[in-house]
């Protein structure tokens, strides 16, 4: 299996795209199963591995790196449009 994404830490709820991912394909990464890509995602950006409700933390490297500002669906692109920093929140 040629992997197209990377799960850095088992606790993480996002994976990192190893190349540009297109809507319709599936996430192929060690430790990840049954996650469809629901929108185009640029290489090295994050993809949600499960539904993440608004207010929940984004976990990468096994640590909190952000909080999401709206419900994020499994397979969606996770970036500045749907999260905010947990530090210095307005």
């Amino acid at each position, binding site marked *: 299996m040629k992997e197209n994404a990377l799960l850095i830490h088992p606790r993480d709820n996002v994976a*990192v795209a*190893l190349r540009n991912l297109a809507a319709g394909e599936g996430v192929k990464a060690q430790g990840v199963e049954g996650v469809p890509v629901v929108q185009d995602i640029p290489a090295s950006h994050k993809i949600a591995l499960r539904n993440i409700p608004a207010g929940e933390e984004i976990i*990468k490297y096994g*640590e909190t790196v952000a909080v999401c500002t709206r419900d994020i669906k499994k397979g969606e692109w996770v970036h500045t449009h749907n999260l905010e920093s947990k530090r210095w929140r307005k």
Partner: protein
Amino acid sequence: MREITGYERKNEKFGIRNHVLVMPTVSCVNGVINRISREVPEAVCVDHSYGCGRGSIRDTQILFRVLAGMVHHPNVGAVVLIGLGCERSNTKALGPFIDAAKPVEIFNVQECGSLQTAKKGAAAARRLLAEINGQPRVSMPWDKLLASMECGGSDAMSGVTANVALGAVSDWLVAKGANVIFGENTEMIGTAHVLARRAKNEEVAKRIVEMIDQAEQRSKDIMGTLASWVISPGNMDGGMSTIAEKSMGCIFKGGSTTINQVVDYGEWPTEKGLILQDGPGYDGDSMAGLAASGSQIMFFSTGRGTPAGFPIVPVVKVASNSRIYHAMMDDIDINAGLLVEGRSLEDLREEMINLMVRVINGEKTKAEANGMDVFTMMTVHPPF
């Protein structure tokens, strides 16, 4: 066999290069340095934009520490210092800070004008080159090495591939008895609890938290509510969304060993093993701080790609992805992007250690061979 060699200095330090450094004490005389550089290309001629016009105690402390640090640097065998005369860091004021255990020749432009000074400086550089050229390399103990870890032009892969690889080399070096230093406090914001957990003792843990709190406060003071985005547009294009995310990727480069000391910007460590530096994230300023702390070799990871090296320190560039490695093959020494294409971390680490040993023993890194030198230092207040 992993034998390393270097130039033994009178103060028991070891250099891995034997440079004659030609440096101004103030930007006003940069033209003199440029003339000497054309006449004596074998010397390492460094110009800069500091030396006067900044009055604060902190800026003066940094200025003196970095200029003295360049003179003291173990990779430098002899120095030609060109002063003006009336600048803050004039050669008389700088004198007490320089205990170089090496030849240092000083010339001031206000004594005989720029052309005469350039002539004298060039003659001194030639003389010193001849003087130190014969010094032999001798076997160098690993514990005399201070390697530094730097990252710049990062992308989201930096924290997945290149910095993980740097971390593996850091851990290997510390296990070997060598020393490793890394800084960039703004890129530690959000990770104080992770780093403090690895501190040698309570005191070091407290200092780590304090340093990162201060970096955070400074960012807030400067950027207000935008402070959580103290990452560049290039970083964001690369997929990083917050400073905490970038920081997690950054601190991977220091590996996983105990943190034994936190030193100030440009300060020489007194402890062994893994050391943190309270220095800024901006690449040039950070490199100068690490060099002024006595680091003889630097690993520098990059995802977006930068050619930057440092005048007196060989910088090993490590790409976080294959695309930038191939696009900037003339600048980048190692491709850590292969980690996501099936290459094992152990295999990559071996390649990096082998290259490091060759570089310590004299092989030029790409930034070094290309002369992509950058010399800037941290400043706190604007000039007046």
